[in-house]
């Protein structure tokens, strides 16, 4: 076993990014993700990397845009209100087809909201946020170990598909400490012939841009981009199934909610209720195949969320509304207890939805 270290979720993201070859971090502090910036500030100067605290979130995402255009592995991180500020840049990065890793350690909203954990940026992450037709790969870690492994995965997917990968975490996983190890993972490197690295007068210059004045060209770009998205939907969906073999009720939860939900599933099993859990690890692409299969065998679904119910829409779409889907939720920084989820499972068993 590799050496164990005790890390905060936020630190695990930062260390994993460095191990994935990221040497450029641009950010602006906000609770509850500040440890990412603090870690980078400490480490980057020691390894020849760049840590830069920009004057704003908008500046930092545009620094990401610039460094990525120059072919660098680059990232930024923030929390909910800060991500809202970055969305203009996210749209430009999507329109320019360049890779980036963006971390959102969510807190309660809307507006300035609070500093406690939340999952209410699900829509923003999976349905756009910024303007125009675009997608981001959205990865939802449920442990400190996954904060590390999905960060490495996120960089890989971003480079592979030339688009943004977002780590959609929450204040709990960002702040909590767990022992983890960094296994020797192979870091893929990708040729970037499109990058702005200087022509040395030996080749035609590259252009990174999201402006297309001819509608025919812009349409073509959009169609091409969506062919790529279809490929990702086919190949990159990730999920975990827990006690689903004989399940009659399916609990759906991601991130920190899934850990609480697992306890409720075990408690319900002890009462003889056949219940299982599907945990989407990629929120986009949504693991539709898992839900298509589950919809054939379970009687109902329960979406457990730290929001007013956002992922529930995707559960309904993925199951084509074949079975009823109920919501078990807390919002504004609150987390449901295992007992609250257990009560929802008991109700589902009774057919009360």
């Amino acid at each position, binding site marked *: 076993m590799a050496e*164990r270290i*005790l890390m905060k979720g936020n630190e695990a993201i930062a260390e994993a990014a460095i191990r994935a070859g990221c040497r450029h971090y641009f950010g602006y502090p906000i609770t509850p993700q500040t*440890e990412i910036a603090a870690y980078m500030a400490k480490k980057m100067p020691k390894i020849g990397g760049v840590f830069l605290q920009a004057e704003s979130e908008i500046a930092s995402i545009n620094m990401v845009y610039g460094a990525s255009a120059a072919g660098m592995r680059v990232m930024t991180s923030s929390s909910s209100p800060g991500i809202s500020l970055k969305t203009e840049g996210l749209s430009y990065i999507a329109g320019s087809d360049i890779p980036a890793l963006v971390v959102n350690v969510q807190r309660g909203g809307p507006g300035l909201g609070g500093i406690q954990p939340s999952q209410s940026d699900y829509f923003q992450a999976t349905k756009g946020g910024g303007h125009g037709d675009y997608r981001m790969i959205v990865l939802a870690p449920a442990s400190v170990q996954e904060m590390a492994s999905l960060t490495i995965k996120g960089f890989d997917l971003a480079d592979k598909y030339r688009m943004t990968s977002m780590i959609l975490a929450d204040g*709990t996983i960002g*702040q909590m400490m767990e*022992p983890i190890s960094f296994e020797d993972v192979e870091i893929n490197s990708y040729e970037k012939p499109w990058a702005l690295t200087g022509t040395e007068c030996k080749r035609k210059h590259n252009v990174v841009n999201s402006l297309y004045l001819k509608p025919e060209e812009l349409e073509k770009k959009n169609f091409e981009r969506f062919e790529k998205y279809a490929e990702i939907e086919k190949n990159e969906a990730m999920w975990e199934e827990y006690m689903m073999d004989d399940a009659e009720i399916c609990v759906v939860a991601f991130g*920190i909610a899934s850990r609480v939900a697992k306890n409720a599933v075990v408690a319900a099993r002890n009462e003889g209720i056949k219940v299982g859990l599907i945990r989407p690890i990629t929120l986009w692409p949504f693991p539709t195949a898992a839900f298509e299969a589950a919809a054939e065998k379970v009687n109902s679904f329960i979406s457990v969320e730290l929001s007013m119910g956002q992922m529930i829409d995707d559960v309904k779409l993925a199951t084509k509304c074949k079975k009823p889907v109920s919501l078990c939720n807390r919002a504004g920084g609150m987390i449901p207890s295992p007992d609250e989820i257990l009560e929802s499972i008991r109700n589902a068993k009774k057919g009360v939805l």
Partner: protein
Amino acid sequence: MEHKRLTLFAGHYGSGKTNIAVNYALLLAKEGNKVCIADLDIVNPYFRTKDSEKELLSAGIRLVSPQYANSNVDLPALPAESYSLVQDKSTLGIMDIGGDDRGAYALGRYAEAIKAENDYRMAFVVNCYRPLTSTVDDAVEVMKEIEAACGLKFNCIVNNSNLGKETTPATVLDSLDFVERLSERTGLEIFMHTAEESVAKELTGLRVMPMVLQKKIFDLPDDIS
């Protein structure tokens, strides 16, 4: 253990300062002392002394924490009462200093008075399993940054090396080499080792403070994999 009038716990964020401060306060209270604990952490709004308010109050310990602690209004302001800890010499005072150098600036406010009284122990809390203090060089760097920020020098080390729920007696024993080297390098004595109660029981022959009160992480239930 010989107690000083004031005990200050400082260290890198996530080193376990708050947890140690509340457990040390309980230990002193159990020995019949009049104890007051102050939360001077203006950096981390999540893990606070106030999380253990109930246990501390029932042990007769006075708690001074920022007015808005554990609310969404987390102003980086110190309560006016904190100064009473420095002034009221009839009480054993414990100060939980904020994470790394930025958190330690707040202590500077009281440094002159603490030095004048000259009856204090300032402990560097360290966990060698934490990423930014896993080498002696890194730990010394953090130590110097804190000293520069608060204007007080450390005079002992608290070894809180642990791996959370995975901590075994071997985890602590394996850290001894690190903490002894740190002690040798800095010339600071090892004040004590700390470990969760059940682990501490098995560590005979070491001066270990058992951690009776354990920080709950958002009351997350036991994990199931």
